[in-house]
């Protein structure tokens, strides 16, 4: 084995990722190569700087604290999700009901209604449309405004 190949395999070697055959071959090379042996020592020393991080632990479980956080943060969310779920079901139902009401309103026949007429207007129209009134106006014996006045007086105005 040459140094180039050995150095390429050193990371896998310290990480225990080499198969037995490659490992034995590298072992033989390292025994006869001070440069590769130094490189291997460097890698092992590098691994030792992680010891304080590996030894980190917890004196107690964080579960009770997390459980409380879960209840605090997810309870309103769950409530909102329930509301959203309810709304998801109710909105289509409401839309269908509204559509039915609109269709029924459009289909049901309704009597035509004219705007209400004021009593005076009705009287005037009746008077003007009557043959006697036309006769009076046409003969120019009475002017239309005089006729209206007469009607007004006749109605107790």
């Amino acid at each position: 084995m040459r140094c180039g190949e050995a150095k390429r395999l050193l990371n896998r070697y310290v990480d225990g990722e080499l198969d037995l055959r490659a490992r034995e071959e590298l072992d033989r090379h390292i025994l006869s190569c001070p440069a590769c042996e130094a490189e291997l020592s460097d890698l092992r020393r590098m691994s030792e700087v992680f010891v304080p991080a590996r030894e980190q632990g917890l004196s107690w479980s964080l579960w009770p604290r997390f459980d409380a956080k879960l209840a605090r943060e997810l309870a309103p969310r769950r409530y909102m999700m329930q509301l959203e779920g309810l709304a998801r079901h109710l909105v289509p139902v409401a839309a269908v009901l509204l559509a039915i009401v609109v269709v029924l309103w459009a289909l049901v026949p309704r009597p035509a209604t004219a705007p209400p007429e004021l009593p005076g207007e009705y009287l005037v129209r009746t008077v003007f449309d009557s043959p006697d009134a036309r006769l009076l106006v046409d003969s120019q014996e009475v002017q239309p405004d005089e006729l209206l006045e007469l009607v007004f007086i006749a109605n107790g105005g």
Partner: protein
Amino acid sequence: MAWQDLSDEELVRRFNAGDTGAFEGLFRRYEVAMYRLARARVASEDAALDIVQETFLKAYQGLGKLRSGPAFRAWLYRVCLNVAAGSARSEARRRRAETDAAERLEEVGEPIQTMLKQEGLRRLQSALSRLPRLLADTLILREIEGRSYSEISEVMKCSEKAVEMRLFRARRLLRRAMAAQEGMP
């Protein structure tokens, strides 16, 4: 049956079937691992505890989308690494905590072993923070969690060859970063 006797796959299956109590088993199984990961990333213990909480909160909310139980551990590592590295808030906390840690070292009465351990951890955190994130995360999974190349490739969503290359580069850069620290006054 106690959670210790159940696999991740079974606990995930039970949780997704509506047994929210199954999550406690997953939490207790992985809380220390997540804490170690967080501690490698942030100097403050409180910040590390926050990362653990946030990681499991995201896991709780996202577990329904995870159909495969065996992938849980890789997925959880990924969530934790993202939470730890992702927020500017944790960056600010880290800087503040580095100062706190340095001040704590000066306190009288601190056992010498604890002080040395804390100093070692602080130096490691500082050196790791100078590495590109992908390299630092790969190195943390290998050196602190002892994960195999295969597992790391699953967490990092890359090939084993890429894991090997990242570890090679990460160790070289870490060595330089540590050496630069030693050169500091």
